[in-house]
């Protein structure tokens, strides 16, 4: 599991989560390296979201171990995850709609003055600075985020993840709610973050999204890991076969491939 002798940034080993007898995640092992984008794909109910929730601290696994830089770590809460530099952008964005952009960006990690009062100016300043980089058109720093467009809300969620020096970024369907222009913008941003050395786990329904961006792709089906492949060594069809049939490319028969196109 080592690359160039170094430990992977994150390894999740033999993760299991079950809800009342249903195995949502059933013995899955994946790893992520520095500056890498790992695509995590699978159909509805494949267990992708549950798996990454164990990494972001939103869901406790029944068993399994998470390693950061090769060291086993305990992640029980979102705070634990953030302590290890693991930031998550949820599909729902997880924004408090009634609070403005700086308030959301620093939610749970507010900047305070010496007396423990919130330092709104400093937070707005930091938000303006990061937005100048991520989305220069963003100007609405005082309005509740409910009044922002989908793309602007997405920017806030991304800014929140990036601002705190994330080393590991989990993005759950980052482009699902966006128009074409905004999608391109987010894709560009993902590449930029990768170049900065951040490890990214990208979850998406959109196989083209993943195929464009990811270095490696892990496929899940019914709670189990079908396999992890290097993008350069597979075709989109082969990935689709993994998602739908649950077979690795070398196990596929020509009849099955024909079926896919049926």
């Amino acid at each position, binding site marked *: 599991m080592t690359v160039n002798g170094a430990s992977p940034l994150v390894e999740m080993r033999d993760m299991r989560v079950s809800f009342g007898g249903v195995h949502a995640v059933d013995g899955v092992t994946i790893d992520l390296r520095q500056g890498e984008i790992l695509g995590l794909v699978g159909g509805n109910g494949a267990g992708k979201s549950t798996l990454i929730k164990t990494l*972001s601290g*939103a869901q406790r696994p029944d068993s399994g171990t998470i390693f950061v830089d090769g060291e086993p770590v305990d992640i029980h*809460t*979102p*705070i634990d995850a*953030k302590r290890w530099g693991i930031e*998550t952008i*949820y599909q*729902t*964005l*997880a*924004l*408090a*709609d*009634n*609070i403005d952009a700086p*308030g959301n960006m620093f*939610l*749970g*990690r*507010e900047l*305070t003055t010496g007396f*423990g*009062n*919130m330092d709104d*100016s*400093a937070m*707005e*300043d930091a938000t*303006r600075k990061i937005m100048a980089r991520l989305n220069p*058109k*963003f*100007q*609405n720093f*005082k*309005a509740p985020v*409910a*009044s*922002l*467009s*989908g793309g*602007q809300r997405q920017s806030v969620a991304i800014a929140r993840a990036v601002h705190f020096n994330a080393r590991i970024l989990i993005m759950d369907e980052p482009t699902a709610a966006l128009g074409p222009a905004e999608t391109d913008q987010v894709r560009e941003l993902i590449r930029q973050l990768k170049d900065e050395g951040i490890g990214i786990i990208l979850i998406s329904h959109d196989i083209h999204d993943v195929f464009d961006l990811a270095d490696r792709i892990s496929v899940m089906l019914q709670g189990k890991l079908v396999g992890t492949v290097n993008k350069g060594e597979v075709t989109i069809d082969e990935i689709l076969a993994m998602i739908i049939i649950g077979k690795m490319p070398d196990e596929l028969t020509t009849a099955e491939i024909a079926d896919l196109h049926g």
Partner: protein
Amino acid sequence: MAVTEESTTTSEGALTPEVPEGGDPTGLRGRVKRTFAALEIDTRMFGMIFGLVVIWIGFHIWTGGTFITPRNLWFLTVQTSIVAIMATGMVLIIVSRNIDLSVGSMLGFIGMFMALLQAEWLPALIGFDQWYTWILVLIAGLILGAILGLIQGAVVAYLGVPSFIVTLGGLLIWRGLSWVMARGRTIAPMDVSFQLLGGGARGSVGGTVSWIIGAVASVAIVSFLVIRRRNRLKFGFRVRPFWADVVLMVLGPALVLGAVWFLNQYYLPIGLAEQYVEEHGLDIPPEELEVPFGIANPVLIALGTALVMTFIATRRRFGRYVYAIGGNPEAAKLSGIRTKRLVMLTFMLMGILVGLAAAVQIARLNSATAGLGTLQELYVIAAAVIGGTSLSGGVGTVFGAVLGALFMQSLQSGMVLVGIETATQDVIIGVVLVAAVAVDVAYRRRQAR
């Protein structure tokens, strides 16, 4: 949605105020809107103040000039204070998507406890009317309030019982316990120092101190505006136009000092004036004596409470988290906020405020009865809701709730002055409550579009 981005990005320069879109930019409405935007006055809040002014003037005319008088408004402020104290806490409860139906009964229970403590239990130990009795009683009452609130909050947060049910239970439990504790007796009188918490001639600060308080408040308003402006300029953020800040710096202190001036014209009535002349060995006829009551203690307590609660709600993390929970509980949890603990603490805070309100109430009545605080929960919730707190959570301000309390009390005391019977008063207040929320809902729907 895309329009929002468009319109704000086109506003040029750092010093231009953000203008809310929608509305005719050239007509009178557009101009009024822009003026408000520059002053950063919430149009909703303005609507409420406007409504308040309308009913004040309406009652003034209807009563033939007895409503807007120093005496009547002085009493109005005192009567508002008890509901206002509790409404400041109810806002946070409702903002976090909960409700507290128990505050009236809890006020009765804590009030009865404090009454018994100072009239029966403590005197048995330390004798009557020690100078420190009132402090012991008040602290005990606040602690009891904290405990009761903590119990209810813990059941809501950790056992997951809906707050509606928990506090409905509390409504019955605290009322029943209050009766059990005193067997339905009326406990009186209160400790002489404790009585001062309730207002009256001795429980008011007098003319000079009122002026000092007004002056301090004015200085505070101006410094707040100056510091805020400087701070925002330091970061290069947009600030209000200079004229707008100047207007606020004049308007704020003018309102405060005007209120002090007006209320200070409520002088001691003849009986108390005679006493005053005698005590101070003055050589003027009592009917010519013009000694103002000044701001009543309960009003100072309510104003202080509102200030502290506003500070907690807007400047502290605690407040920010309460709003976050109300806006999106899931997001709050994912941000690492300990939502359960926080909800429990809001109920504890509510309990403390109920304890404070109970102290003022029994001091004012100089007694505690079995029915103390009955139906107060409804007035407190109504004040918060009329003041713009949304029952679906996430929205509401402490200042709005205080205004709401004042609004309701104005309505009620106006109707008393006019001579409307109690039953009809209830009908009218009920209608106003529903109408106020209907207007608010319609307004918000327009804003959201």
